[in-house]
């Protein structure tokens, strides 16, 4: 089985990289880009039957820093 973990900075945490991408898009002539948030996608190839709780534990112990980031899990 495969799972995809999306890690994003929490709302309210400044995202300097997202801000730089927004500025670049504006400079390229793409109008109307109000905000850009940049995150990470992590794909996991897992033993069949791995529980969602186990994946959550992976996220909270390593894949995301819960001080500044939130995550979502998609089972593929």
């Amino acid at each position, binding site marked *: 089985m495969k799972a995809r973990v999306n890690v994003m900075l929490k709302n309210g*945490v*400044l995202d*300097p*990289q997202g801000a*730089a991408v927004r500025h670049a898009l504006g400079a390229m002539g793409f109008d109307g880009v109000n905000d850009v948030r940049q995150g990470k996608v992590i794909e996991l190839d897992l033993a069949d039957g791995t529980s969602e709780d186990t994946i959550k534990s992976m996220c909270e*112990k*390593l*894949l995301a*820093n819960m*001080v*500044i980031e939130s995550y979502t899990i998609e089972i593929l």
Partner: protein
Amino acid sequence: MKAAVLQFPGSNCDRDMAVALRNSGADVTMVWHKETSLPDGLDVVAVPGGFSYGDYLRCGAIAANSPITQALKAHVERGGYAFGICNGFQVLTEAGLLPGALLRNAGLKYICKTTPLQVATSDSAYTSSYTKGQMIGVPIAHHDGNFTADAHTLDMLEAEDRVAFRYGDNPNGSARDIAGILSANRRVLGMMPHPERAFEAAHGNEDGKGFFDSLVSAVVPA
């Protein structure tokens, strides 16, 4: 004083740290990250700067789950002293031994320069040789030194006098100009600037020497 310097793959300030500690009178042991225990009778653990595990995933995140870091947590739980400089600060926050997190610098650039630093408290084993409010100059060299924490945590750090150092001209966007913080028991410190790079005349700057002098005088031999 018996000190250990942890070495992760990608640590690059480990030897500078060992030299600074030895020249301050400490008996220093280097400890590889795959070790599961620290030397007996240890007073202080130093987590050095560098790019542990290539800074993959997040700076310090993989080192925070390394075998030796479990032993470091046990040392801190016993009331032992530990400090992290630069990447070491990132490791300590990722390991949950200090609050907050270090984000990418607000200006997105890697910054390497001597920065003015205010000693925000002299009430710690790391800062007692300085006077509160004293301005010193200490080199920084980092890409991810933008300290952040929620407002409640920042208020608590300030109310408990746990901000050890503040930037004189905030180079990286850190919340409330914070450059270094202390744990609740004041025995764990993390800071982005490098006192071990401003330790002797040959460095052109000895402002970091007080950090090590404080530590040696505060930590009674075991």
